[in-house]
């Protein structure tokens, strides 16, 4: 079956020749018309549209956005904050970068609609420290929007006021975790908070109710406000509505970003047709489907079981290529859609070395407050690094697994899971390669071999 056509609603203007990131260009393309209509509606109506849309968060967890908004404590009398999570930092993910650099007003209009819907008077955009240009572009765009009365006091004469400020991170991955982000925005180390009691919807920024949404998620809200939740839900598949942006990197002919109706494209279509297949003379070996913490898939393995199609239960028997790229299908086969970052590895890659690379990342990024994660991620790095650069032992796979198995469920935040899933899944899927590694090391590597760690 040929791959479906791309449907670019969020990336509509990305890479469009002549499209610039100033407000003039945005207005010429119909910009801020949705905000003008939105502020004339009741906020509850907008929240209802988002609930109807079935929109799921695009930052990684896929949590329904309408539910998240519904959990916000609106009776406390405290101000409600909205934070745009622009700390795009899950390896393999690079979609928000393009929205912020090329179409910043889309994000600002979407943010203002979401703020209005939730009666938010102050929003912050928490952007990665490594995107200094992005921060400047957003600051300029906010100033333009403020001058045009789309942001700031008495927006469009409605009496509703809301400010947006840009806040720069400083290179810590954990700030993508929403409670870590909140701590960081409060001026502290980004140590995530324990839930309960610190659910952001109740006790978030400055102990006030807070909504934290990913950049892309908010952009979908603008589309939903424009077309209605029911219309949005017609895109994609039930439970996986709207479009999904896939960021493909690694060993494919055409890496990049591709936006499709959610659940309509399979891994095989995405990698072989859209991305042009493997590099010349190579074969796909493995793929990580949703950012580097998602569990790895091995080409050649099969997934069998029963799944719901409408109201019926039907059998499925998929190879990696057959898996639809949606939250539920990827969840069913034991991995996740996560942030949409698809990392592809071909047959030149040794999986011990690839894991050593990932482990070095997680060990560097653990915030350090929970012992299982701080020590576990460090030991997984030390073991895999020793296997590659020092002596590899037959029992290393079992040792790695035992370390990884003792982390998840024992930490304050999901980083514990994120850092253990790669080790657990690499060993489950490529255990043979770990066992053979002491032997593999005895044969000399080809001169053009790529170092991964």
């Amino acid at each position: 079956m040929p791959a479906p056509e791309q449907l670019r609603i969020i990336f509509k203007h990305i890479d469009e020749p002549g499209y610039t990131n100033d407000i003039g260009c945005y207005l010429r393309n119909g910009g801020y018309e949705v905000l003008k209509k939105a502020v004339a509606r009741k906020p509850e109506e907008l929240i209802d549209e988002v609930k109807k849309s079935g929109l799921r968060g695009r930052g990684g967890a896929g949590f329904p956005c309408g539910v998240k908004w519904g959990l916000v404590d609106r009776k406390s009398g405290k101000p409600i904050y909205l934070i745009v999570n622009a700390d795009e930092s899950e390896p393999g993910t690079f979609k928000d970068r393009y929205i912020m650099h090329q179409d910043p007003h889309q994000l600002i209009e979407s943010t203002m609609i979401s703020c209005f819907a939730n009666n938010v008077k102050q929003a912050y955009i928490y952007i990665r420290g490594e995107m200094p240009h992005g921060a400047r572009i957003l600051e300029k765009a906010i100033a333009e929007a403020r001058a045009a009365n789309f942001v700031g006091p008495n927006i469009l004469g409605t009496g509703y006021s809301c400010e947006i400020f840009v806040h720069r991170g400083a290179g810590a991955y954990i700030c993508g975790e929403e409670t870590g982000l909140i701590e960081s925005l409060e001026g502290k180390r980004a140590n995530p908070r324990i839930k309960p009691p610190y659910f952001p919807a109740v006790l978030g920024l400055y102990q006030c109710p807070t909504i934290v949404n990913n950049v892309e998620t908010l952009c979908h809200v603008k589309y939903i406000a424009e077309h209605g939740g029911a219309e949005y839900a017609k895109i994609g598949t039930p439970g996986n509505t709207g479009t999904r942006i896939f960021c493909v990197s690694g060993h494919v002919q055409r890496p990049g970003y591709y936006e499709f109706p959610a659940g309509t494209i399979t891994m095989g279509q995405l990698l072989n047709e859209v991305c042009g297949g493997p590099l010349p003379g190579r074969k796909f070996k493995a793929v990580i489907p949703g950012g580097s913490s998602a569990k790895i898939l091995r080409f050649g393995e099969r997934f069998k079981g029963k799944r719901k199609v409408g109201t019926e239960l039907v059998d499925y028997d998929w190879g990696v290529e057959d898996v639809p790229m949606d939250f539920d299908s990827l969840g069913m086969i034991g991995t996740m859609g996560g942030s949409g970052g698809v990392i592809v590895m071909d047959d030149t890659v040794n999986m011990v070395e690839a894991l050593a690379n990932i482990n070095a990342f997680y060990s560097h990024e653990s915030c350090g407050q929970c012992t299982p994660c701080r020590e576990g991620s460090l030991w997984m790095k030390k073991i895999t690094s020793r296997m590659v650069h020092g002596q590899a032992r037959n029992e290393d796979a079992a040792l790695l697994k035992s370390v990884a198995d003792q982390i998840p469920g024992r930490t304050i935040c999901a980083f514990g899971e994120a850092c253990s899933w790669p080790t657990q899944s690499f060993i489950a899927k490529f255990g043979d390669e770990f066992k053979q590694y002491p032997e593999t090391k005895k044969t000399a590597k080809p001169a053009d071999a790529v170092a991964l760690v």
Partner: protein
Amino acid sequence: MNLKPETLSKIDEVITHYPTKRSATLPLLHLIQEDVGHLPPDTSEWVAAKLELQPINVLEVITFYPMFRQKPIGRRHIKVCRTLSCALLGGYKTCATFEQEFHTHLGEVSPDGEVTVDFVECLASCGTAPVVMIDDELHEKVDCAKAKQLSDQIKAEAQKR
């Protein structure tokens, strides 16, 4: 602390963005680092006084975030992405090329004082791997040849000075 007047006015402005002064810790550290080039030893005391905090509240932030540095670096900062997508396409060789070109080692100031090369984690541009940031500029698809070319550019600019 000897900061430029425009840095001081930016500092006073950014504090107003937040209901609590402590929130301005990261913005202040960024502004000081952009002005001075690194965070000098009296940073914690100075920021703490400005934001009505204890110096340890600031120091613990400086040591947590990888982008803050307490020592001077070379005139240009070369940050090569180390993470998986870039490594799969040769990031380690790219990094080694910069080290060789400037006769330096990771994290050190090169002998001519021109650059500091760092190997950093994911820069969120995995589709154009391997990527490198030189100061604020992102460079895409930096293979060894392009790394050499960028190094030559930096050297040429240094000669003109």
